[in-house]
């Protein structure tokens, strides 16, 4: 996260770290149910085998395991069938854990939006992750507040790409607060009435973020995929096991 700040333990209990040896942390991810996590499909490029992955919850400092930490292996990776590697469209995947997490104050699922629930431009939301900060890789989880940008305005920043309805844009024209490499798959969450945090985006792509930064970050639009997510979880929970 560029232009953010170090977050305090327990502030984002749905944030998880998708890890694979020998690199360790590869991508962010988001807990949406006791046995299910969301992340983006491009994190699995070249590593489609579930056996090489593990998911770590309840940590703040990647380098210091906390007493709240929980680690699970990956049972199933479900990539969106229309994921397009070239243009990074339909960039979403669902991960089934090998067993339920234990829900605590430091490990808890985020809410998913309903199909009709969209986030309006100019809404302020949060992004979090252990990705590049522009000058270094952090150990502690970083958080940044970003503003939702309309798709039309977003397209004007990215001449070379097509911004589709499967995408959501957030950040600032100057790129002062933005996600970066290593944040992919992490959450873009917005606070809803009664203090409920809802997941509207998954960090997906943007312009290069550790040199000349320009334009907002682009996130997978979770509202667009709600029906697909619910169906996959239902089929794998009740019919395939």
């Amino acid at each position, binding site marked *: 996260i560029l232009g953010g700040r170090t977050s305090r333990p327990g*502030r984002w209990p749905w944030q998880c770290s998708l890890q694979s040896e020998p690199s360790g942390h590869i991508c962010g991810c988001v807990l949406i149910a006791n046995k299910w996590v969301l992340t983006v499909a491009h994190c699995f490029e070249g590593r489609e085998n579930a056996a090489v992955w593990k998911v770590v919850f309840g940590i703040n400092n990647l380098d210091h395991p906390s007493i709240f930490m929980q680690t699970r292996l990956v049972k199933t990776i479900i990539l969106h069938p229309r994921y397009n590697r070239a243009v990074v469209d339909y960039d979403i995947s669902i991960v089934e854990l090998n067993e339920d997490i234990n829900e605590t104050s430091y490990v808890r699922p985020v809410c998913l939006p309903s199909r009709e629930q969209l986030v309006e431009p100019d809404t302020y939301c949060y992004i979090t992750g252990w990705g590049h900060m522009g000058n270094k890789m952090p150990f502690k989880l970083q958080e940044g507040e970003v503003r939702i940008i309309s798709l039309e305005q977003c397209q004007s920043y990215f001449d070379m790409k097509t911004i589709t309805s499967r995408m959501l844009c957030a950040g600032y024209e100057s790129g002062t607060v933005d996600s970066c490499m290593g944040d992919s798959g992490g959450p873009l969450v917005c606070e809803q009435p009664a203090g409920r945090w809802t997941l509207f985006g998954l960090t997906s792509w943007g312009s290069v973020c550790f040199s000349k930064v320009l334009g907002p970050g682009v996130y997978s639009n979770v509202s667009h995929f709600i029906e697909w997510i619910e169906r996959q979880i*239902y089929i794998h929970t009740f019919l395939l096991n």
Partner: protein
Amino acid sequence: CIDTSCPDSCGTSFLCDMTNSQTNCSQCEPITLELCMNLPYNYTNYPNYLGHRTQKEASISWESSLFPALVQTNCYKYLMFFACTILVPKCDPQTNQRIPPCRVLCEHSKERCESVLGIVGLQWPEDTDCTQFPEENSDNQTCLTPDEDVEECSPSHFKCRSGRCVLASRRCDGQADCEDDSDEDNCGCRERGLWECPSNKLCIQHAMICDGFPDCPDKVDEKNCSFCKADELECASHDCVPREVWCDGQLDCMDNSDEWNCVTLSKNTSSLAFLTIHRSATDYHVCADEWQEKLSQLACNQMGLGGPSATKIIQENEQLHHQKWLNLHSDWKNKNASTLPALVVKGQSCQSRSKVSLLCSKKDCGRRPAARMSKR
């Protein structure tokens, strides 16, 4: 990497991907950077002249956005060609040798385009010092110069009638970008090899028709995709299955769509939510004979409502006795089934003449108790 001229191994740098550290960088590799897929050569090797270690890194680099945008200004006819010779340097598969651009190509590009960048406050990419490239035909160093039929525009551009290159995302965007407006001609879906949604003129690729994912607002791209028999139903993936297997708790369609949305709650006038099962694509209520609370929780879980549930048994209203319903299977307790539709059957009488109404709730989510303010 095996060849010392390569960057340091992946172990220290986060951004490499696993395969990179085993790459023998002196090998040529096919060009995959979309921007440079129309060059008079097909192989490259890395790192390139801008320090990018892989084509993937080059594809998200600042320069891979800068050059195509700069090409639109028409500052130099062979700018795109030069940009590609440094983004994906030519590699001769026979000799595994890299062939650089000639110095004159670099100098002409820089002379004519650097000032244009200055106008918008940007600089020419630092790593392109022209003196690093050989003079043309100097001591038999071969280097690259554009020949007459080299493409001025990249595959990411649209070529105006006038010859100018404008970015493909500006083609048919409703604004004329070519001086002769040719980027706004022939903008019908058909002219662009696409399929048009009748309802809103949205253009979609032909591959998206009948692929199981609706793209047009009225889903017309997923209609008339297969012709099932009278006693069959069409799956979302357009294969046909017998009507009676619909919502029977077994997966039959290729995309499992025969088991989607089988358990729902249907409201009636008194806003009671009756448990409804969409068996054989017909809605049935559930007879309350032998009903147990844990079945209510299973039903709510199946609807993604994993919170606590409450059950109400509603006495059937006499004149509605023709209402369709399903009963629990006589020995449902011994069936090794994980879904409610697999535990119910049609065509039995309902002794209690009552049906199941449910109150489900969402599981708690989106709260962060540990982030609570602590009084000091």
